């Protein structure tokens, strides 16, 4: 963690870092993200619409689960996103901590509520799916439990962020928490899996999944890509808001406000 103390002296003279600092400057970020958002947003909308139509109407019926399996087109991408966003958060937090790039902190803190929402969505859809499959809304299945703990980690992150008043200190504290969390996630995951196999033994309700057919895989991947672009859109919108708020006393922000008023 010594790198935290003094990277300043030669970081700015390095051309690569110079480019990064330039690109990550709030003003440039605001300009570029403004151009990207409509593209990302429309692409996300198209992918999600096409993916859900394909998944709901054209993908074949599962021979074991009938039509109720179709919830995977929301459930699985949401679960993927829940883990992906936590990784983004921790990585962005580490970048902010080490190179003191403010934009990385903004991305990390804008990601947290979205990640928590995806985790919650994965849990809810999992439990709705579980009702016809397992006959219960909730089963202490290893994956479900690990997902629930991930939700707790997100909530802790957001609680810590809102508790610290100074945004710089909040960002750095949250970055440390996210890094500790990321190191712990695999440990938690495997211990939960291990716990479950010992406790439930033969009664484990996890059904044997047939390896997925290509006609089901395509809508699944469309949805996954759509979710990812949706996340990129929303995180940029949130980050833009935060950047504007944080830079409200700077000239370029005042000019933007003047233009739009």
């Amino acid at each position, binding site marked *: 963690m010594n790198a*935290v103390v003094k990277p300043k002296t030669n970081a700015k003279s390095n051309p690569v870092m110079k480019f990064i600092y330039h690109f990550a400057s709030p003003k440039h970020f605001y300009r570029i993200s403004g151009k990207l958002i409509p593209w990302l947003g429309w692409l996300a909308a198209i992918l999600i619409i096409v993916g859900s139509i394909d998944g709901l109407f054209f993908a074949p019926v599962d021979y074991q689960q009938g039509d109720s399996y179709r919830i995977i087109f929301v459930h699985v991408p949401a679960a993927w996103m829940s883990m992906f966003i936590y990784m983004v958060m921790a990585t962005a937090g580490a970048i902010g901590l080490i190179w003191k790039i403010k934009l990385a902190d903004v991305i990390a803190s804008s990601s947290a509520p979205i990640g928590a929402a995806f985790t919650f969505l994965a849990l809810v859809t999992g439990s709705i799916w579980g009702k016809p499959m397992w006959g219960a809304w909730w089963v202490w299945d290893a994956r479900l439990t690990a997902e629930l703990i991930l939700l707790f980690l997100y909530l802790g992150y957001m609680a810590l962020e809102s508790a610290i008043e100074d945004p710089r200190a909040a960002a750095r504290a949250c970055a440390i*928490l996210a890094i500790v969390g990321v190191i712990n996630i695999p440990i938690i995951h495997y211990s939960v899996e291990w716990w479950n196999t010992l406790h439930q033994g033969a009664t484990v309700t996890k059904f044997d999944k047939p390896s997925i057919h290509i006609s089901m895989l395509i809508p699944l991947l469309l949805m996954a890509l759509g979710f990812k672009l949706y996340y990129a859109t929303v995180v940029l919108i949130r980050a833009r808001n935060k950047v504007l708020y944080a830079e409200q006393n700077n000239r370029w922000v005042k000019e933007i406000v003047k233009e739009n008023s």
Partner: protein
Amino acid sequence: MYNAFFSLVKRDLRLAFRHKSEILNPLFFFVIVVTLFPLGISPEKQTLAEIGPGIIWVAALLASMLSLDSLFRSDFDDGTLELMLLSEYPLSILVLGKIIVHWLITGFPIIIFSPLLGTVMFLSNDAIETLMITLLLGTPILSLIGAIGMALVVALKRGGMLLSLLVLPLYIPVLIFSSNAVGSSMAGLSISGQLYFLAAFLIFCITLAPIATSAALRVSLE
């Protein structure tokens, strides 16, 4: 460096023995929480033996977490922590000293008292022995992980509730493996796998937790 480390450990231990409640309160808490379960569930021998390992471990975990405040709070209030930050010695070593003292005054008494509670919960002799071994391996992990959380919230006025939100999810692997080991030894199964995991996790935490804690303290004290 060793001098600084040992004099810090000595000082913290002396402080703890001057305020005996710091040592006794977590212990009382631990005993009371375990006592509540037979009252709330059932005094039957079979039920208690089944849920006993989990309950004793959950109580130990909560007792350790609630005592985390003593780790940095008073040093933060009187400015000692700031001096430690400015000193020439690596902060993570000093932090490790404080964590060891925290374990000695909260984890260690719990281990000493655990056979009593194991007997009250009708655990078998083997299970009590396993309980003590898991506590010996597990409670230092609780202090180490808890220190990271405490360092993050030490500057906040109402950090207590927040601390539990941050720390409890990270305690889950310890709880799973420990209570499982005790349960398995009740059933006469081998427990070496769980103990190896706990030992590995302990070493992992000793290596990395002080570094994370000192980074968190630097943020909190800015």
